[in-house]
């Protein structure tokens, strides 16, 4: 085919210039691919953090307001003690005493106190169904977040009390795709089924299971209620997972007995019909549940700080503009060099016009040469992009994300010491939730879409350069072109 022969010969003649143009485009395209890959990697890391925090499938999380001061009726149980209402106070000699609400106190020595507390106030369970009926909502599930604190007092007044705690989530077993278990992966046993709604079964986080030597089939005591472990799960790294999951009905019963919640839930997980519906759903829920805290992935994302956020900002701002600038420079260089090449070939094009070549045929030839350089640049650019992504992957330090405590991720670190406190146990509020730092490895990913974009950009660069050259050819009068040779 004559077109190809002519194109090939011309590119071979201008080999150095063709390589220079192709490399310029390759550099621009390679940078775009690298930045896009890094950006995608950062976004992936960020969304990994967020999905771990938030749970896959959950769009809006509603938590009850922070609890007020402990109520006199708040209850817990101390073994070896059948009093229901008590607090820990200091005795006349400085020793701890367990005091009931009617003012009777007894020496705490040798006793163990098990307190089940809720970090959020209750939300009426019927509000869950009400939330599910709101426009834009596809599903809603109630949940209960609790903390079990155990304090053991020594027999001597001089020995310090030993405290431990673990976190407990009551989950709606009929909606496994919503709530804290949605992002967990099962490592052994099985998760809840709808039939477990009121069963004495528990799913345990792998970290907690290891520390407490729990296996599938182990029996776990929570606030003197026993549960059989049916599954061990692992949550993504970024989250602060609850230690134990039990059916929400069981959690509700325990919290009712403990006095921390009055037969209510304290968390609602909501799924929206689409991402576009989330703001409207958020608005609807706010109207339905005034005073609650409503968290969306977007609001959570804005609270993620640390180098992952800096990297995202860097990739989005500096990286993007750097890539755009290099691309513009590459386009400009390609265009100028093509214009210069056309200027040098005026006699050639004039001759072709003289012997009857139509302008569009000559233009096609020149554009074809530019596009060939663009395609070469695209191929080289994609290769450079892959190399850039690999280099970033190899040398980039592991990013860190400082993530806020959230309703879904809310927990106190397992084993956190709990000292003696007022009756009602250790109060928790959203304000006191722990932020924590997680390491997020950055793995730039070159996607098919990015490759397609790169090829389009490079070919567009070639087309632009070819078009500018073509504009000059179209204006060229053969008599003028030939007169410059004579």
């Amino acid at each position: 085919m004559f077109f190809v022969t002519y194109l090939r010969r011309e590119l071979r003649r201008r080999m150095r210039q063709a390589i220079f143009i192709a490399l310029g485009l390759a550099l621009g395209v390679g940078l775009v691919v690298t930045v896009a890959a890094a950006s995608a990697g950062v976004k992936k890391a960020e969304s990994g953090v967020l999905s771990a925090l938030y749970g896959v499938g959950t769009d809006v999380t509603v938590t009850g307001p922070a609890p007020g001061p402990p109520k006199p009726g708040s209850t817990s149980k101390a073994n070896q003690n059948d009093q229901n209402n008590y607090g820990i106070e200091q005795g006349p000699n400085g020793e701890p005493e367990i005091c009931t609400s009617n003012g009777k106190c007894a020496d705490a020595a040798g006793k163990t106190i098990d307190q089940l507390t809720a970090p959020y106030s209750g939300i009426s369970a019927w509000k869950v169904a009400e939330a599910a009926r709101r426009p834009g909502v596809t599903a809603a599930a109630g949940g209960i977040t609790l903390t079990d604190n155990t304090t053991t007092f020594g027999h001597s007044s001089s020995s310090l009390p030993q405290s431990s705690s673990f976190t407990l989530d009551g989950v709606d077993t009929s909606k496994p795709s919503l709530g804290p278990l949605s992002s967990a992966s099962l490592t052994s046993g099985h998760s809840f089924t709808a039939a477990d709604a009121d069963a004495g079964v528990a799913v345990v986080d792998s970290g907690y299971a290891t520390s407490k030597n729990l296996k599938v089939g182990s029996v776990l005591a929570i606030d003197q209620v026993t549960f059989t472990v049916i599954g061990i799960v692992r949550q993504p790294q970024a989250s602060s997972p609850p230690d134990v999951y039990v059916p929400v009905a069981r959690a509700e019963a325990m919290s009712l007995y403990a006095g921390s919640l009055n037969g209510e839930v304290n968390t609602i997980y909501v799924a929206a019909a689409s991402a576009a519906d989330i703001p409207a759903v958020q608005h609807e829920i706010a109207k339905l549940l005034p005073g609650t805290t409503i968290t969306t992935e977007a609001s959570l994302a804005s609270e993620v700080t640390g180098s992952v956020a800096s990297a995202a900002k860097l990739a989005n701002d500096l990286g993007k503009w750097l890539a755009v600038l290099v691309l513009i420079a590459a386009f400009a260089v390609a265009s100028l060099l093509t214009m210069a090449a056309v200027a040098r070939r005026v006699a050639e094009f004039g001759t072709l016009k003289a012997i009857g070549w139509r302008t569009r045929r000559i233009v096609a030839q020149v554009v074809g040469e530019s596009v060939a350089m663009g395609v070469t640049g695209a191929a080289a650019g994609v290769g450079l992009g892959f190399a850039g992504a690999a280099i970033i992957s190899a040398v980039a330090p592991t990013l860190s994300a400082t993530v806020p405590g959230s309703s879904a991720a809310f927990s106190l670190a397992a084993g956190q010491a709990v000292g003696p406190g007022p009756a009602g146990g250790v109060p928790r509020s959203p304000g006191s939730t722990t932020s924590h730092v997680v390491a997020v490895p950055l793995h730039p990913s070159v996607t098919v879409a990015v490759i397609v974009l790169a090829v389009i950009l490079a070919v567009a660069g070639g087309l632009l350069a070819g078009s500018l050259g073509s504009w000059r050819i179209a204006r060229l009068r053969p008599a003028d072109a030939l007169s410059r040779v004579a």
Partner: protein
Amino acid sequence: MYKLTGVTKLYQKGRHTVPAITGLDLTIADGEWLAVQGRTGHGKSTLLNLLGGLDRPTDGTVELDGIGLGALPEIQLTRFRAEKVGFIFQTFNLIPTLSAAENVETALIPLRVSGADRQARVAAALDSVGLGDRAAHLPSEMSGGQQQRTAIARALVKEPRVVLADEPTGNLDQDTRDDIIALLDQLWRERGLTLVLVTHDTAIARRAQRVGVMSNGRLAIHQATGSATASGGGPSARPPSR
């Protein structure tokens, strides 16, 4: 037959209007060899450009077989050049990256001749100018005479009615010049071409049937007594025009 009536061509050079041809009337019969002489800048090349449809007159008409070239739309003028006119340039104007055969082939591209036919016609054209064995050579691998022969093959491969040659021997040595002129003479005789040849060389001009001398944009025609006329050439002696 070419008929030029009252042709004027003016060029705008900055703020000045420069006349290249002024009020030219000329008739060129089919199959005629017209040589055009004159000093540089007196309108010879402009005349060729007008005859070849590379330029349009500022005033007057240039007709070939009654069709005014100046009034043709660009696309038809391009078609006219592709089909009817062969150009031969002083500097050969070969495309340096293409072989002799490919350079000749460029003239057939606008005519949409099929690949096989193209190859056959290119080979025949190169044979006719004595370059059958140089088809694969690049211009840089050929002498000036061979390059001009290639250019002549390119002009003739489309089997045009008219060949316009602008100082075709201007860049050649004496021997090569004689070869090229002999070749043009032979092809003109064999093919019944209308040949308009611009030259500074009086010896070459004498071979034409008529000689026109351009001076200050005006053409004075003289009857030549050279070989074309002496050997019985000329329109009446040509094979029937196509």
